[in-house]
Structure formats: structure tokens, C-alpha cells
């Protein structure tokens, strides 16, 4: 009787051990969580991260939080539940995301942030973000030059909960406000969205037909704005964006949008996966948690070299 029981137990323990050991034979999992892929910028991040993860022998779980902090929290739970070894995250808000990243850390899953930073250090392993201020200054300098240092203009802002919306606007104004003849006649948020960019531009144009330029916090809103301007027959208005998407590249080449600022989204995502890989294998993080990636001005001179958020040499 006793022997049978012992045998059963041993068998049970064996099965259990086998069950636990099993996943070790499968590839480790990296979760890649970004905003919606409707915006090609976020799609490029996800594609870049996934390609690098596969190259390094990982399985991937690609998810989108649609800029909803609650949804992001659920996706972090999913990643933890699925036993992810690391999370690559373009987060849904610089304050609201701190708790979600902390939750993953508490569960033993390290996070590697890209594109947007959070207002805390020591929670994520890395925060690899574009130097939005440097990029915005490049965009603003080009905008001011195109405007001849004077005239009425409109600013389209990104989503307010996103720190990048504020920092880009600050970078723009730290340059533009130094020119007393540059006058901002309207400033509105179009929430990073192309459709909102279109409708906001339409309304603004009705109230302010005397505008000479539009500076936008990202490329999708700039695409919306240029479409509205063209629909109204206003091909004279100077539009400048931010991101460096292929859509805007094509618009620059055909004489629509005048300039944008490239954020190296693809390289950034790949760098995050490389740092995650090192961390998984050695437990070592980068020398500094917050890392800035410089942006590059894109105009008619170099637009042809731009492809999927990277400049060809």
C-alpha cells in the first residue's frame, strides 16, 4: 500500500517536473506592445522588433493597446501570464504606464521602453527614446526658414497624455517664438490622428484663411492637414510634420508637405530587442536607462533616401 502510494507520488512528481521543464525546450517569448498599427510609425516599430527577436531565436507576441492605459494593463497581464521573458513597450501615457511597467517588474518580467518615456526611472530596464526636443528644433528651424521668418501659422498638437506631444510643441516654440513676426493664429490637438487632422484643419482654415503655414506634432496629422488644404485649393500653405513616414516622404517628393523629422523607429525597436536579449542572457542592463536617439531633418534634398523610418546612405 505504502509502496504504491510512494510510486504514484514519484510518478506524479515526474510528470510535474516534465511539465515544468517542457517550455524550456520551446523558444523564449518576447512580447511587443505598441499603439495601433494604423499609424505606420508604430507598425515599423513592431516589425523592426519582431524581425530582430526572430533573428535572435525568440518567439514573439505582438499586441496593440490603442493608447488605452486599461487595455495596456491587460496586455501586460497577458504577457506575464504567457511567461514572456521581456516586454518591448511603446507605452500608453507617461504617468499612467508607470504602474503597468512596475507590475511586470514585480512579476519578474523586465520592460524595454521605446519611443515614449515614462516619468520614472528604475522601473524599466531601458528607455530608448527619440530626442524629440532636438528633432522638433530641427523641424522648427526649417519651418521658420520656409516661412521667411514671418507670417501666420497653425500648430496641430498630439495627444495630451503623451509626453512627446508636449516636448515637440516646446521644441517648436523655443525656436519659433524667438521670431516676433511669426504669429500662431490657432493651436489645437488632433490626437495624432489623420482624420482629426483633416477635420481640425478644415475648421481652422474657415476661421483663418490668411494662414501661411502649419506645423504638426506628427506625420499622420500633417497628412490630414495637407489633404484638407489641397481640398480647399490651398497649395500655397507650408506644412511640416514629424516622424519621417513613407507617406510624407512621397508627399515631399510630389511637392506637397515641405519637410518632416525622421525618428529612427526601426533602429530604436531593434536596439531595444538587443538590450533585452543581453539582459535575458547575462542579467546586465545598458549603462544608462534613458537613452536618446537623435532625429534627422527630411526635406526635398534627402527624401529619396528615406525608407520605412530609416535613411539609406
Amino acid at each position, binding site marked *: 500500500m505504502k509502496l504504491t502510494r510512494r510510486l504514484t507520488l514519484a510518478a506524479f512528481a515526474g510528470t510535474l517536473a516534465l511539465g515544468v521543464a517542457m517550455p524550456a525546450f520551446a523558444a523564449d517569448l518576447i512580447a511587443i506592445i505598441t499603439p495601433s498599427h494604423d499609424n505606420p510609425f508604430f507598425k515599423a516599430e513592431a516589425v523592426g522588433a519582431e524581425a530582430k527577436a526572430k533573428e535572435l531565436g525568440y518567439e514573439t507576441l505582438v499586441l496593440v493597446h490603442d493608447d488605452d492605459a486599461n487595455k495596456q494593463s491587460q496586455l501586460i497581464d497577458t504577457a506575464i501570464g504567457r511567461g514572456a521573458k521581456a516586454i518591448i513597450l511603446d507605452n500608453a501615457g*507617461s504617468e499612467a504606464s508607470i504602474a503597468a511597467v512596475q507590475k511586470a517588474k514585480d512579476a519578474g518580467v523586465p520592460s524595454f521602453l521605446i519611443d515614449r518615456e515614462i516619468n520614472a526611472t528604475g522601473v524599466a530596464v531601458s528607455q530608448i527614446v527619440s530626442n524629440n526636443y532636438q528633432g522638433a528644433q530641427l523641424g522648427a528651424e526649417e519651418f521658420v526658414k520656409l516661412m521667411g521668418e514671418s507670417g501666420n501659422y497653425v500648430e496641430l498638437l498630439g495627444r495630451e497624455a503623451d509626453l512627446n506631444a508636449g516636448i515637440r510643441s*516646446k521644441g517648436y516654440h523655443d525656436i519659433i517664438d524667438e521670431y516676433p513676426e511669426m504669429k500662431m493664429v490657432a493651436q489645437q490637438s488632433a490626437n495624432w490622428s489623420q482624420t482629426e487632422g483633416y477635420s481640425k484643419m478644415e475648421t481652422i482654415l474657415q476661421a483663418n484663411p490668411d494662414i501661411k503655414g502649419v506645423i504638426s506634432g506628427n506625420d499622420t496629422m500633417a497628412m490630414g492637414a495637407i489633404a484638407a488644404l489641397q481640398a480647399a485649393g490651398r497649395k500655397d500653405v507650408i506644412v511640416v510634420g514629424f516622424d519621417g513616414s513613407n507617406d510624407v516622404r512621397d508627399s515631399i517628393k510630389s511637392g506637397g508637405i515641405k519637410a518632416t523629422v525622421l525618428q529612427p523607429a526601426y533602429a530604436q525597436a531593434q536596439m531595444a530587442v538587443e538590450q533585452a536579449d543581453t539582459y535575458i542572457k547575462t542579467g546586465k542592463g545598458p*549603462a544608462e536607462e534613458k537613452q536618446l536617439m537623435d532625429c534627422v531633418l527630411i526635406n526635398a534634398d534627402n527624401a529619396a533616401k528615406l525608407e520605412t523610418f530609416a535613411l539609406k546612405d
Partner: protein
Amino acid sequence: MPNFRAAAAISLAITLVLPGCKIIKTPTAEEAAAEASGGFAPDKQVADLWDSKVIPFLQQRAGIFQEVFALSKSDLDAAAARYGHKEKDGTAPWTFAAKVSGTIVKAETKSRAAYLEADVDGDGKGDVRIQIGPVIKGTAIRDSLDFVNFNEFKNQIQWAEFGKAFNTHVYGLTLEKLSREGLEGKKVEALGAYPLPPTGQPALLTPATLTIGG
């Protein structure tokens, strides 16, 4: 009687409370702004650092511009080790500390992003541009310093405000008082910093000190 008691209680209370009174100084606009942004006051931080750390650091670190520039072309690592600084990770270019001593061959003062072009080797051609504002591009002074670090700031916004505060400080201290007339042909001495320019483009130096002679 009850009235008397109440009055006594009140006067006692007043006597007790009075010594607890404190005279509070009305905060200056600067202090109020710092309070509103959670104690972050980049202008004050920069003003406090300027004479004690920034200028001594640049004086000690800077090389003669033409030597720094030539070394950065022939051996970037060596130039970076001697004169350069950048954040450990990320993709920012090296920023070099340099001293310029030369002759002004061109003064672009029509644009608000005004600059002087200086000839440092006597060939009559401009070798370096020195920003004189009011629009000062970039954050070269901040980026040249090895004792300030992005990771010690809350976020990019504060890091950016800190970077701009150096430009504002040097403009108020020196550049604003500069005469914008008849600059060409005069001697110029500057101590400052510039980021490694893209190939083929001139170096753009942000001065920390600037003297224009006869």
C-alpha cells in the same frame, strides 16, 4: 461673567498664538515658478553652475579650435577622449569644447539666428561659425559638460529646459550687449562648444565667453 470669561479666553488664545506667527517672505517670480514646477528651476540651476563649474570646465577642457577640428577628422576617438563629451548610450553626436581666436570675415545679423564667421588660420576664409543669437540653435553647452546627465532629470522636457537655460544665460550675460554693426574685420576670441557637424558642413560654436576686439 461669561462674557468676561470668553474675552479672557480669547486674549489668552491670542497671546498663545502670536509667538507662533512667522513672517513669510513673498516669493519672487522665479521662486514661484520653481514651486509650480515641483522645485525645478533650470535658470537658477544654470546661474549657480556657470561661474563655479561651467566656465572652469570649458577652460580646462577646450582645445584650440583648428586642432580640435583637425583631430576630429583624422582620429575621432582621440579627439573625443581629449575634448569631447556625449551621453553614454543613445546616438547623440560628440560635442567638443573649443577656443576660437581669429578674425571675423562675415557677420550674418539679418536672421535672428545670427552668427559670426571667423577665420582662424589666416587664409581669409571662414572656418567656424559662432552663434550670437537671439536664436541659439541646439544645446551645445549642456552637451559638452561631463557633470550633467539626462538620467538625473525627470523627463525630456526638463532636460530640454535645462539645455535652453544655458543659451538664455549666455545671451543675457554677453551676447545681448554685443554691437551688431561693423563686426567684419574685427578680432574675435571665444570659448565654447560645438557638436560634430555632418560631413562638409561648418562647425557651429555656441560661445560661453566672447570678446570682440579692434
